[in-house]
């Protein structure tokens, strides 16, 4: 009798609580989840993420930023859509560039046919004028969309700087929300200043210099006598050098800034937390944990904002970058294809245009990489500040 009772007792103890635990736990989980979502929503609203997202929407055309932001918070970004977008743009640009190149090749072929006729006439000036006309035709073909490309580049650079001017204050606000007060005060003015300065410098100084060098290169191929090729090459080389110097300076500034201050922030944060949890009796420990939680959520949001920011930056600059990549590839390919049939000067003109597009590509890459690295550094600084706890 006693044994049966014991067995029953054990059964009761083992079976019933099990069931009740399970249900209680699951409901608990959901509650935690709800609470998490609520905290995230609250944080989002109080930190003014909505404004930022609507701002970001202006720059991305057919990609939903809000959806991207939410998926960045939950940690599952969908890459296929972005990849499709990029490949579509690249294909379109390659097609356009190839069309221009095929026009150039047709002009060269027509000229070489006419040249065989006009060269036998023993009339030098005719052959020369025919060469000029062919040259001018090729130049007008190449230059047909050149000013559009320059305009595109300028617009995307100004977009990038203005977007950085909205993104970085937000990121620094979020840094304060994650408790990196010192870093944010140090880094915001410097980053903003440097990015605005570099953007203006590139649009107002570097691009005109490259344009002048391109014009010089075009003009110096018209005749055999007036050659200013070296000057144009010098200008191009100089602008590349300036570009690399700028990037190096920016990188060293940003890394130095981040490295010095993030440790300080971590210590301040830790001190504040221990102050809260020790000074306030009874509920102090819970409050300290709450601070931790809020900071963690802010950090998640901040990182998501950073991811969205990087994404928007890529969206802004991807069009000119892909366009320029396509153009560079096509022009070098065209120069290689034209070499057997075309005049030496024309081949070098096409090659030089490829070089110009390559410099523009370098400019775009510099700005993009600079901004992405700036944002990544801001993200990393506050993450490492949080790690000190």
């Amino acid at each position, binding site marked *: 009798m006693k044994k049966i009772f014991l067995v029953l007792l054990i059964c009761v103890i083992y079976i019933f609580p099990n069931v009740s635990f399970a249900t209680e736990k699951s409901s608990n989980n959901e509650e935690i989840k709800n609470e998490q979502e609520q905290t995230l929503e609250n944080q989002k609203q109080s930190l003014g993420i909505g404004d930022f997202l609507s701002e970001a929407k202006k720059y991305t055309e057919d990609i939903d930023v809000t959806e991207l932001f939410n998926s960045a918070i939950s940690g599952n970004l969908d890459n296929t859509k972005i990849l499709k977008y990029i490949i579509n743009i690249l294909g379109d640009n390659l097609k356009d560039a190839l*069309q*221009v190149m*095929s*026009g150039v090749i*047709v*002009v060269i*072929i*027509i*000229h070489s*046919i*006419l040249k065989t*006729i*006009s060269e036998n*006439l*023993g*009339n030098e*000036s*005719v052959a020369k*004028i*025919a060469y*000029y*006309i*062919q*040259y*001018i*035709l090729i*130049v*007008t*073909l190449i*230059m047909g969309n*050149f*000013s559009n490309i*320059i305009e595109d580049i300028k617009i995307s650079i100004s977009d990038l700087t203005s977007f950085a001017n909205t993104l970085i204050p937000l990121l620094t606000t979020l840094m304060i929300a994650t408790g990196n007060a010192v870093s944010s005060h140090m880094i915001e003015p410097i980053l903003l200043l440097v990015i605005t300065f570099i953007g203006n410098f590139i649009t107002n100084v570097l*691009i*005109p210099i490259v*344009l*002048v060098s*391109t*014009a010089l290169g*075009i*003009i110096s191929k*018209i005749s055999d006598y007036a050659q200013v090729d070296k000057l144009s090459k010098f200008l191009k080389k100089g602008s590349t050098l300036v570009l690399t110097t700028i990037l190096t300076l920016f990188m060293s500034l940003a890394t130095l800034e981040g490295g010095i201050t993030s440790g300080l922030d971590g210590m301040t944060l830790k001190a504040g937390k221990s102050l809260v949890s020790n000074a306030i009796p009874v509920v102090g420990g819970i409050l300290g944990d709450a601070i931790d939680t809020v900071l963690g959520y802010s950090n998640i949001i901040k990182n998501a904002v950073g991811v969205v920011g990087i994404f928007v930056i890529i969206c802004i600059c991807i069009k000119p970058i892909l366009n320029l990549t396509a153009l560079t590839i096509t022009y070098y390919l065209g120069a290689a294809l034209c070499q057997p049939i075309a005049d030496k000067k024309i081949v070098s003109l096409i090659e030089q245009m490829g070089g110009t597009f390559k410099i523009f590509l370098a400019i775009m890459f510099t700005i993009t990489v600079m901004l992405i690295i700036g944002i990544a550094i801001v993200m990393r600084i506050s993450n490492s500040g949080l790690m000190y706890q």
Partner: protein
Amino acid sequence: MDIVKIIGVGFIAVIIIVILKQYRPEFAIYASIIAGVIIILMITDTLSGIINLLQDIANRTNVNTQFLKILMKITGIAILTEFAVSICKDSGETAVANKIDIGGKVIIISMSIPIIRALLETVLKILP
């Protein structure tokens, strides 16, 4: 077999000129001019075929056909000028030949003015 016809016309003209030179040397120049005109007329068909082909190629791409036309016209003018100049030189009139040459060059340059302007405009458009 256009080339055979051209060669035939040329040989006949040469024979006529050689015969004429013995009796009436002043008529020999007419025979040579007529032979040249006939040969030019014979090759126009072939030339128009070539030009049609070039235009067809140009239309398929987005080349500015207006400029291509000028290019072809200039080549045509050059061919005609050269033809006239060589006839003048054959008959010993180098001065007239030079004048025709200058006229051809001036016309060619005047035709290429819009192209030069287009080039300058594109270069100016690039400059900031």
